[in-house]
């Protein structure tokens, strides 16, 4: 299910020895930073993080002295991590590249669900939000199939449940966050103290 990264790890001048030995220097350090970020965010997103969010977190960590990692750099680093048999991989969901950092078997149904969730123009709600009904309708599936795929993704921690007004929807926090990064909403006003 994970896509071929399609990058030749030897075709880079970022540290001759780093490439030959596969260790040390830019990609090694980048790999460590990527693992760090994925571990920290895993409780929220179940091990599925968008390339955009990952890059933003990497740039926040990196100081001016070292060069900023590009998406291409991240792809190379992930290819190396994948080569170590670490459960890392890339997954294309529509226009968004996701970095998967858990060795979870996601099948085509799960990918299809995520693709629907990622469509910002999805009629059912906000970006990252789906319901059993909207999925079944979009994909032409029986509701039971949609429910099963969703429940698996919830169990893996990749989706959060939203119960309100008798209706249940499912949110893919990684997509929701990605969208918030692209178009930050107006700040809500600060909350005052409790009314005595």
């Amino acid at each position, binding site marked *: 299910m994970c896509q071929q990264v399609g990058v030749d790890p030897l075709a880079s001048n970022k540290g001759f020895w780093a490439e030959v030995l596969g260790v040390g220097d830019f990609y090694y350090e980048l790999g460590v930073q990527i693992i760090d970020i994925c571990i920290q965010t895993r*409780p929220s997103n179940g091990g599925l993080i968008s390339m955009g969010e990952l890059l933003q977190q990497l740039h926040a960590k990196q100081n001016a002295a070292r060069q900023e990692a590009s998406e291409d750099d991240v792809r190379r680093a992930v290819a190396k991590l994948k080569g170590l048999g670490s459960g890392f991989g890339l997954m294309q969901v529509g226009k968004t590249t996701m970095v998967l950092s858990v060795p979870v078997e996601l099948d085509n149904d799960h990918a299809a669900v995520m693709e629907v969730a990622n469509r910002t123009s999805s009629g059912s709600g906000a970006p990252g939000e789906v319901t059993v009904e909207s999925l079944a309708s979009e994909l032409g599936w029986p509701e039971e199939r949609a429910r099963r795929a969703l429940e698996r993704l919830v*169990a893996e921690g990749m989706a*959060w*449940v939203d119960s*309100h007004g008798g209706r249940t929807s499912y949110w893919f926090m990684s997509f929701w966050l990605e969208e918030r990064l692209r178009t930050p909403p107006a700040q809500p006003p600060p*909350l005052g103290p*409790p009314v*005595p």
Partner: protein
Amino acid sequence: PPECWSSPPFFTLQPVAVTREKQLTLWADVVLDWAKTTNTWSMALHKCPLWANPTISRRLSDEGVAAVVAHLIAKGNAEWETGDNGSGGAAAAAAVGEVGAGRRLRIMWKTVANVANELIAHARESGMIGSVYTVFELHSGDDAPGTPFHQMDPWLLRRAIVLLEEQGKAALFEGATSDAEGVKFFSA
């Protein structure tokens, strides 16, 4: 408030254990941040404006609120004003039963130990050693503004003083009310 507070699923108590743990950790951050910003040390639980976000039309259920409170109590950042603060299941069960009843919750965005350390340091740096001060003076006296204790709830100051007494750094003089009680700070 932080980003997560604008996210609808944040207001549904998550069924999956790992996700719930993360959610409660985030809720604790939201509550303590808000308490610090508004200088809130205690509140009627149901009057807290955090439990509902009208902008996204979501409200945390009573069960959710109880889980957040239990998490804060377990971390040492909150306690009920009256009644059992027990540990584990007993406190959580009591909390669920009491959420709707207007009980007051104390929020310690600074722990008692933090306040005690700040208090004795302040006393030693400000030449307060040897004299007796009332709790009222500490939070509302002429010299209170600008100190970390300005407008601090008396129950918290009292707890800090009791801790300092246990550590041999101060003596508490009992009084009819918290505000009337006094403290004498000792030098190092």
